[in-house]
């Protein structure tokens, strides 16, 4: 019986560390909670919004694919 109690005690110790074990953090993307903190973040967010203006279906209409590719490497 004693040994059973030891095992139960072990479980009691492990339980609180479970919370930490389950608290995972994303490793390959940025979540909105960690973003929009610096001026650079905000500029990039704005550039993301303006991005659509350069879409082939908006103002980039008529630009040839190879030329558009070259633009992005400027």
């Amino acid at each position, binding site marked *: 019986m004693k040994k059973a109690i030891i095992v139960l005690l072990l479980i009691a110790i492990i339980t609180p560390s479970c919370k930490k*074990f389950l608290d*995972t953090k994303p490793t390959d993307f940025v979540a909105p909670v960690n*973003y929009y903190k610096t001026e650079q973040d905000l500029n990039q967010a704005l550039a*993301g919004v303006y991005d659509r203006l350069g*879409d082939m279906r908006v103002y980039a209409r008529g630009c040839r694919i190879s030329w558009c590719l070259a633009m992005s490497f400027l």
Partner: protein
Amino acid sequence: MMSPYEFVRYQLELNPTAATEALYLNDGKTLESYRDVTGVDWQDQALRTANMQNHSIAVRGGTDKTKYSFSGNVMTQDGVLLNSGFNRYQGRFQIDQKIGKNFKAAVNVNYTHTKRFGQMSNQTTDNLNGASSGNASSYIFYSIWGYRPVSGGDDGQLLEDPFDEDITSTVDLRVNPVINLKNAYNYQFRNTLYANAFLEYTFLKDFKLKIAGGITESELRGERFNNSQTAAGSPFTTYGANFGVNGSLNNSFTHSWLNENTLTYNKVYNTKHQVNAVGGFTLQRNDVQTNGFTAILLPNESLGIKGLEEGTLYSSISSGSYSTLASFLGRVNYTFNSKYLFTVSYRADGSSRFASGNRWGYFPSAAFAWRLGDETVIKNIGAISDAKFRVSYGITGNNRVSDFAYMSVLRQNVSSNSANTNSGYFFNNQFVQGTVPTEVGNENLVWERTAQFDLGLDVSMFNNRISLVADYYQKRTNDLLLDATLASSTGYGSAFKNIGTVSNRGLEFTLNTVNIETKDFSWGSGFNIAFNRNKVEELNYDQSSLTTRVGSWSSNFNASPYIALPGRQVASFYGYVFDGLYQIEDFDRLIDGTYVLKPNVQNNGEDASTIRPGYIKYKDINGDGIINANDQTVIGSPIPKHIGGFSNNLRYKQFDVNIFFQWSYGNDLLNANRIVFEGAERRANVNMLASYADRWTPDNIGSLLPVAGGYGPNFYSNRNIEDGSFLRLKTVSLGYNLPLAALKSLKIADVRVYASAQNLITWTNYSGLNPEVSVRDSPLTPGFDWSAYPAARTITLGLNVTF
């Protein structure tokens, strides 16, 4: 498919222009000249009879204290599509060891290497990464079925040219299927190592402590090389012209571990009360890492996939994620007099895939069984040899969502527009990377919970000659988790949601009988049938229905052919109701010979001025005089009324025969192959199904197939819903066991020679290749058929030797 004669007749009807005539009626040819032309049978060219081999060896042995076994297996299977196949090499090792009086240990290791290669029928041929692009013509079966049988010129040239010179390669991605398949370099290599071990310690007589651990290491490497003869690498296609010869390499590593710790208590009191109690906790973690790149404009085609570094980097990927799961569990079994069996269990699972407040799910269950056969009342009924009554209720959980589905995702370097430039904008002529939200998170995600009630009865009669198992179950799933498609106006394609409540109830019967049993001859049969009814009880987010699109097969068909409605089953086919074809009397004939729809005749959802005799008509369900999305209704059920199997085992002396039938009854299928190849594809020079030869023409007004080019709007309708019920002779096998006397002198214990055949005969009204089809298989989109890999008829010859 249509014969050359029918194909040319169709082309002349579809595009009655000088160009078409110049193409097919050159050098004084007429339609009749094609009467005896055989043309190219592309399906015959692209499919083949393939070989399969399977070899296994197993060794077992040991002593009182040590037991071991190891086994090996090699399987090579060629696919029925040219240049495709699957190979598997597997090795396994297991050892059990008793250590002293109280300890026991075991190790089990399994290693598998698989190789899968060839053009996948459910993937597109044209795209750089083999991803789907939503152009129906980029699927291999489109090319196999749609590639024309005659070119009007030299048909030998048609076989040799990788592309048809008379098609517009920018919009029509059809390729010579034979050349494309032969040149396809598309490999998936997977190595999986699975190892687990445990240590068991027995103490105080009744207690057992078991600590078990396991790891799974999986490595997947995808290689794709598009040379100049393939759709994605040829200078004649849009992709190939822009990107040249190209290729990609992708790696994915999965690493997971599991630790299980349980304490078991086992005790019998007064020989009547048997108690077995288990308590424990388990931990597991799963890591995934993916990386790879795509290179374009490769200068040395001959180097193949190994020369990828000489090209220009087109895109690269590096990502990774992980999830954890912790569980506490307890279970008590109590048996009284070996007659009454009680079980109560409880588990708590914590999953990292939910937001911190929603991580834990609690799942209790209880069961009771009564061995009626041991009661004297039952024993006195001579006919009944054994009986058992079972009842159980329990809740189970499901956390199948992506690792961080509760979080929104921001990304940079997203290829954003059709020029495949990176997202961003120029501020003061300086390029600034743009941050773009790419996925929307759902913080409210919770465990999906299924409560299940089961009632069962097992009875065997006449000395176990007849045994019957009957089960009734009722399941209710709350907070069903699904990656639901979102309205395009949200800017996101899909997101995980707890979409609602679904219930399932059903009956299952299994009947096994021994019909004849003598020394030389025996016959036994098994029969099983299952009825299941499912129902959407309720949809969350106040939705009145949930419609689902079928992604990336054809961007022309963007409507949702599936609907889930509260009070009805989870998936029903949804679309317009076919109302016959427009006939000549529906039109006024103008002096110049053109037909104009009479003003009182309903249009079909397209402008009345475009409609001609022989075009498809749809029913105006709500009677508002307009054919639009509101005229869609439930047009079929992809869910069977019952499914089952029937098997027979016969033995005569050393011979044995097994015959197994399988069926499904009452389910419909959506045959998208027939949408495209019975008139919806209106491009020139595409061959159609042979059935389309009987289409509507002024001389064939009784036909229900639209006139050439007369498909009308791109709707899903009950025209393409077909009965998918089938009865299939699934397996027939014949075996012969060598007589024992002959083997004794050779020290061989047993030799068995056998032959077996799969999918021999199928009885069905379904017009497609295989009624057991579901290319976008999910609870919401079952039974969709488009460019499906055909089911092969397999004949196997085998030999088993036991020493």
